[in-house]
Structure formats: structure tokens, C-alpha cells
């Protein structure tokens, strides 16, 4: 009886896995089909003769290489900026005593609940005045100082022993040296978590780059993909290869860095 229940349980879980994975498997499968093959009834699940021609078309006539570069610049630039800016601020809020620390931190926490979309219209006007419309820097800006990241790093940095910092000060280390040599190695795990989330968020972002990037040559992958749909919506196989190219980098990153995602969410939330 107990045995039977365990088998049933695994069966239900496996059905769940099939349901969760089928769309993604079909996406890859359709991207390898010949033109028009996916548009038949009943729809084939696997390509009769797999072909890479759509991927070739993406990189030759549709210049997807450029969009990948744009997406990488925005995501990597945003992530590196966030790690430095948020690392410094999170540590300072946890360990450095300065006047106004508590009220400023409480203010930040309160700001965390306001959705970014509320700011988008004035942001556009502001960036237009600054000449940052249609630039990759403009697309990067919302990712540079995530408030939740400051909170995350602060919680982690609280566990750095004060004696260690004090000893370094007595040895004559400057505050920045202390940050670089003692704090940074100590908070490396939480920075890894912050890094994967920022990269993922910047790579997958759509609404803001759609607003701020107006020139085809500046598009990130999601914006380019949505734009291609207008012209090529009938070309299922081509569009699916575009979707695969868009998803693949973050998916591979997830496979290799799984524990940073999963631990980040599971530990971050218990406190919440």
C-alpha cells in the first residue's frame, strides 16, 4: 500500500514534469523543422528531417548576432555595475556607522514596494533630456542600483565579525582596503546570487528596453524578437529558432548556477 502510494506520487510528479517541459521541447523541435512543417494538421512533434537553416538565416539575413551583443552589453554592464554599487551600499548599511543610516535605510525599504512602471514615463522624459534615449546605457540604468539587492547584501554582511574590521583599522587599513580585502571575499556568495538575478532580469526585460530603444540597431533580443513577429509571424520555425536563441543563454546559466538561484530564493524568502 505504501509502495503503491509512492509509485502514484512519482507518476503525478512525472506528469507535471512532462507538462512543464513539453512547451520548451516543442520550441526546440519546431526550430529544427523545415519551413511550413509546423503548420500542418495534426501538428508534428518532432522534425521529419532536422535542419539548421533557420539559425543560419537568423545570423545572416536577420543580424541576430548584433542583438545578442546588445543584450550581453546591457546585461553584463548592468550586472557589474549593480555588484559594485550594491556591494558597497549593502556593506555600509550593515557595518559602517554614519549619521542618518537608519532613516535612509527605512526610506529605501519603503521605496521597494513601488513598481518600476510608475516611474517609466518621467524616466523617458529625463533620459531624453540627458541624451540617453536609444542608448544601451539608458537600457541599463534601471538595473544599476536595485533596492532589493541592497537589502539582500546588507542582511548577509551583518554576519561579518566587527572585530575583524576593527583589527584591520588598527593595522592602518583604509576603509576601501577593508572593503576590498576583507568584506568582498566575505560577501562573495550573496554577490553571486545577486549577480545571477540581475543578469537574468536584465536579459529578460522587455517593457523598458522597448520604450527606450527606438533604433533597430540598438534592440536587445526580446525587443528584436517581438519586432520580428510583426513581419514573420507565419514563419513558425524561424520564430521558434529566434526564441531558442533568446532563451538559451539564460537557460544554460541556470543549469550551471542552479544553486545560486534556488538558494537565493529559498533563503531570501524565509525572512520575508
Amino acid at each position, binding site marked *: 500500500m505504501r509502495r503503491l*502510494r*509512492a509509485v502514484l506520487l*512519482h507518476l503525478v*510528479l512525472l506528469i*507535471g*514534469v512532462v507538462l*512543464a*517541459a*513539453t*512547451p*520548451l521541447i*516543442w520550441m526546440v523541435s519546431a526550430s529544427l523543422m523545415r519551413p511550413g512543417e509546423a503548420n500542418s*494538421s495534426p*501538428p508534428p512533434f518532432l522534425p521529419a528531417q532536422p535542419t539548421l537553416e533557420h539559425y543560419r538565416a537568423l545570423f545572416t539575413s536577420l543580424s541576430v548576432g548584433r542583438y545578442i551583443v546588445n543584450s550581453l552589453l546591457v546585461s553584463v554592464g548592468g550586472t557589474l555595475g549593480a555588484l559594485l554599487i550594491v556591494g*558597497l551600499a549593502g556593506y555600509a548599511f550593515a557595518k*559602517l*556607522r*554614519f549619521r542618518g543610516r537608519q532613516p535612509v535605510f527605512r526610506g529605501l525599504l519603503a*521605496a521597494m514596494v513601488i*513598481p*518600476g*512602471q*510608475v*516611474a*517609466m*514615463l*518621467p*524616466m*523617458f*522624459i*529625463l533620459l*531624453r533630456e540627458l541624451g540617453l534615449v536609444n542608448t544601451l546605457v539608458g537600457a541599463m*540604468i534601471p538595473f*544599476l*542600483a536595485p533596492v532589493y539587492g541592497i537589502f539582500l547584501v546588507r542582511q548577509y554582511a551583518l554576519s561579518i565579525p566587527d572585530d575583524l574590521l576593527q583589527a584591520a*583599522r588598527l593595522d592602518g587599513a583604509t*576603509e576601501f582596503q577593508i*572593503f576590498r580585502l576583507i568584506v568582498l571575499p566575505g560577501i562573495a556568495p550573496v554577490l553571486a546570487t545577486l549577480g545571477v538575478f540581475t543578469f537574468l532580469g536584465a536579459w*529578460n526585460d*522587455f517593457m523598458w528596453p522597448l*520604450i527606450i530603444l527606438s533604433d533597430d540597431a540598438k534592440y536587445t533580443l*526580446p*525587443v528584436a*524578437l*517581438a519586432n520580428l513577429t510583426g513581419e514573420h509571424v507565419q514563419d*513558425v520555425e524561424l520564430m*521558434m529558432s*529566434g*526564441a531558442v536563441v533568446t*532563451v538559451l543563454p*539564460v537557460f544554460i*546559466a541556470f543549469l550551471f548556477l*542552479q544553486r545560486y*538561484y*534556488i538558494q537565493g*530564493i*529559498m*533563503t531570501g*524568502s*524565509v525572512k520575508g
Partner: protein
Amino acid sequence: MTVGGSTAESRAGWAFVTPALALIGIFFVLPVAGAFVLSFTDFDLYSIGGPGNTRFVGLANYRDLLTTPLFWTALRNTLYFVLVGGPLSVAVSLAAALLVNARTVRLKPFFRAAFFAPWVTTLVAVALLWRYIYHPQYGLLNAAIGVFGLGPVDWLGDPAWAMPSIILLSVWKNFGYNMLIFLAGLQAIPEELYEAASLDGAGAWHRFRHVTVPMLGPTLVFVGIVTMITSFQIFSEPYVMTQGGPLKSTTTLMLFMYEEGFRWWRLGFAATIAVVLFLLTLAGTVVQLRFRREAQG
């Protein structure tokens, strides 16, 4: 010496937080305040040409908003997504977490990762993918339900089905995230509570009802409210899958704001929709805080 040290520390503290505060101040706090100011102006295409062409118009934009039928349609569609999709998504997450967490399950990390995988994908790419899955003639979904003699359904072409279809995509994409939060909550429940309940002769349902649910309560409230708040922001799914149609049945508040602001360049008017989003989020947060206080007291 202590005094000198703490001055240096104080100076370093401000130096370390200044880059973050400057960015947040200029590119977040200022624009959020700007959204309120903007909503009282007639900022439009002419203002983009020369900011001098902007005037304060008082509450005219709000009067305009409340008499625009599409606003009420968008509000209704957004609430539909929030009130139906939100609870459904939380329920699926909780069910998945309970299954994965069951004691006899092997390969837990595999199931956990497989259910989480859709969450890391790019929304635009999978919204496009599901657009094809929902194709009335060649789509996978109609082929699948056809096996059981059902359908075909014009998922995205029928105003009655378009929003449920978007909800299904978003449950599929997002349930893995909340599942992880529930798993963390479940793992924090002490094993002894279950053992004690079993000794008292409680069956599986009673253990769930009298141990799991009360112990998971705060997590449930947290997940529920956060899901609700983020659901108000739905934009990409209708943009990619339906462009707000058919018959405006999937036009959401953010899609409406985007079109007014960046297609028709009526930024002053669009800012009122941003204010509405702000107020909805604020209401959600207040509800959350009240719930938490009740749960604690």
C-alpha cells in the same frame, strides 16, 4: 582616536552609499514623484518638441481617464488576471511544493529544478511560443485536447478565452518561483509536529489541515500578496500574444499606459494610469501589512 576613527568610518559610510542613493534618487524617486506632477499636465507630442508647450491642467486628465471606456475595460481585464490568475498560480505552486516535499519522493532536486525551469526563460520568447501552441488549427493544445474529443478552441481569437489563455501561460511560467518559497516554508516546519499528530491518530488530511496550513500561514499570505502586486504589472503577455485584443479583452492597465504614452505620446494622460497602478500597489501592501499583524497578534 576613537573619535577620529568614527569620523573616517562615517565619511566612508556616506561615500559607499552615495553612488547607490544618487542613482536611486535621480532615476527612481524623482521619476516616481514626476509621474504625479506629469499627471496634472497636458504633456504630449508638442511638449517633446519644446517643454515650454506644457501647461498644468489640474484634474482634467483624471476626468478624462474616468470617462474613457477603455480605462474601465483595462481595469476589469487587469483585475480578472489578478483575481483569477493570482490564486490559481499560488494554488499550483503550493500543490507542486507539497508533492515535491513528500517524504517518499526521490530525486527531489531534479523535480525542483524541472518545475523551476520555465521561470528562468525569457517572457517574450515563451509568450511567442505559446502563441503557436494556442493556434486554433496547428497548435499543440488543440491537438492534445482533441485526443479526448474536445475542442477545437480559438484560444487567443475568442474574447472569452483570450484572458484564460494568458493566465495559463503565466501560471506555467511562474509557478516554480513560488513553489521554491513554499518548499522553504515547508522545510522549516519541525518534523516533531507531524510525528505528534501521527501519534494522535491524525491522517494525512488532518496533518495537512492542522499542522501544515497553520505553520505555512505567514508564507501563504506573503506569497499571495506579492503575486497580486506583480500581477497588476502584466504587460508583455498581451503585447506579444494578442496586442490587447480580441475586442480589447486582454488590454491591461500597463498596455493601455504604454499605448497612450508611447504610441500616441499623451504622456500627461498616461501618467494618470501610472498613478492608478501606484494606488493599487499601495492598497495591496496595506492589506498585506494588516494580514501580517493579524497573523502575529
